[in-house]
């Protein structure tokens, strides 16, 4: 199997897994104590079965060689390879925000995330990027907390 087919087949299989998960969770849940004319399990069963059928159909289609055209690419053109280093840097920066925002506060975590993403996109001047990141997060923090009354965590900078 070619690599593109393999990765797309894996994607379709994960859809199949999701459909099985939906069906399993629905099957496991106990019927509610109140009597209702339509059980809350019917709709999930329908959706789960539908996704099951669709993912099987997609798998068959992929095995027959009908693979996707990624967005922004021309049909039939050789598929670009994903650059997973940049991908990991972007997702890493975002996860850093999730882990840090309530501990270090909004300003520090946003500046870090901003800086990390500019690095992932191959920014030329790192120092300039760091400066812009800090300015960006400070301006956003001040304008949201002061003018829009949105509560954002101050974190390690709360002494300021």
């Amino acid at each position: 199997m070619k690599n593109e087919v393999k990765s797309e087949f894996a994607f379709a299989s994960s859809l199949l897994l999701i459909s099985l998960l939906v069906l399993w969770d629905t099957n496991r849940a106990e019927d509610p104590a109140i009597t209702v004319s339509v059980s809350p399990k019917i709709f999930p069963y329908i959706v789960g079965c539908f996704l099951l059928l669709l993912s099987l159909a997609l798998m068959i289609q992929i095995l027959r060689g009908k693979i996707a055209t990624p967005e922004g690419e021309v049909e039939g053109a050789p598929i670009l390879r994903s650059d997973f280093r940049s991908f990991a840097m972007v997702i890493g920066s975002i996860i850093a925000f999730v882990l840090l925002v309530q501990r270090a506060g909004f300003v520090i975590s946003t500046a870090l995330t901003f800086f990390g993403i500019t690095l992932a996109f191959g920014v030329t001047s790192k120092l300039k990027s760091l400066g812009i990141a800090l300015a960006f997060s400070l301006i956003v923090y001040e304008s949201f907390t002061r003018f829009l009354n949105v509560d954002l965590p101050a974190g390690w900078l709360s002494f300021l």
Partner: protein
Amino acid sequence: MMNNFESLLNGFASAITPVNIAFGLLGTLLGTLVGVLPGIGPALAIALLLPITFTVSPASALIMFAAIYYGAMYGGSTTSILLNTPGESGSVMTAVEGNQMARRGRAGAALATAAIGSFIAGTIATLILALAAPSVATLAIEIGSADYVALMLLAFTTVGSLLGSSQLRGFVALTLGLVFGLIGADLQTGLTRLTFGNGSASDGLETVTVIVAIFAIGEALYIASRFKNSGWSVIPIQGKALMSKSDWRRSWKPWLRGTAIGFPLGVIPAGGSEIPTFMSYSLEKKLSKNKDEWGKGAIEGVAGPEAANNSNAAGALVPLLALGLPTTATAAVILVAFQSYQIQAGPLLFTTNPELIWALIASLFIGNTLLLILNLPLVRVWVKLLKIPRPYLFAGIVCFALLGAYALNGNIFDLQVAVVIGVIGFLFRRFGLPITPLILGLILGPNIELQFRRTLQISAGDYGALFATPLTKVLYLTMIIVLLAPAIYRLITRSKLRVKK
């Protein structure tokens, strides 16, 4: 009851307050901004601004959102003409001839015919909207829950079939949206579904989080991993954004024809603006006298699709306002805005909230005029935005998205959801799945379940009630036709080939 025209005049009166005009102006600027920048669209912009619904009055917020919706289309045409990278899906056809015109030094004329065409189409279409929507709403009051189930299923079918590279992929996207919509406690019985014991998940996924993550984070991941290095080259504008006499002569008919194609295809859920703009393009090409100009910058190829795009957007507001049924991603987000004000979009809207709805419709006229006035003189300013280096642009978009996801409830769970949905957004782009069906599934899923149950409750469990009314029969028949259309089309072309042989 007042007639529509009087109501519309009253709408103008309430839309022309300093506050509402300010929000409208802000909306047109923001809309143009997100339209110009490739990679972010009106749905994302409005989703990020949804938190303002806590503090701003419904009329002001909705006026701003509608202005963003219209503004994004003006901005989108600028990008597709000067950059050959469509800013949004409705501008794909504009890019074909528009970019060729720009390369031949006719960028000014292309921008002008796009803006003036959008204005004319938007104005005519909004007028039809003002006349048609109340009548549709009056008819729709009779519509029962079974009809709603059928209507939503039809919308699902058309949106799933017509968007994306294949019918199958459209339906996969839709069904995944339905799965996301299931997550959380069932409203009627309290049964928690797909939460796997997570307490935060029992409130369900925040629509805003999903929309923001799938557009902003998904796009950033996708661009970072594939198109990081392909830069943008903007074609400079020579001269003023003006049209010559012959440009006018060649443009006005395509404008009107585009308007006529776009509006009805917006009203019936035809899956967004790709189809009407494509139809307008092919029609103009067919009607054109000098065919060899096509592909080298024929102005009709810009005028027609741009008009079709705008009138299509106005058309899509008819089912949104009159039935509470969104057919595009942006309309779906506007529906969420209505919900956060506890306003039920649908047939009763015109009787329960007449001031709001007429102010909104009036603001569309005002916004359209503002856009025409602002756009042509300011086009060089907008073009400067395209010079923002990509790293900063995407870093800013992602940070705003994370802020939006976090500020809503101030909890980490929403951010975790955003990360997962962002990765799913990446996978959708990588494997050619359209995003709009997912959003419609997520937002309409709980709705269709509610109407489905209501139908069966009334009929005491008789499933026949789902197909009982004449309207449901018509809708299901249409649905079957839409489902089979691609297969039938393939059969016909194949048999034609055989005849030729």
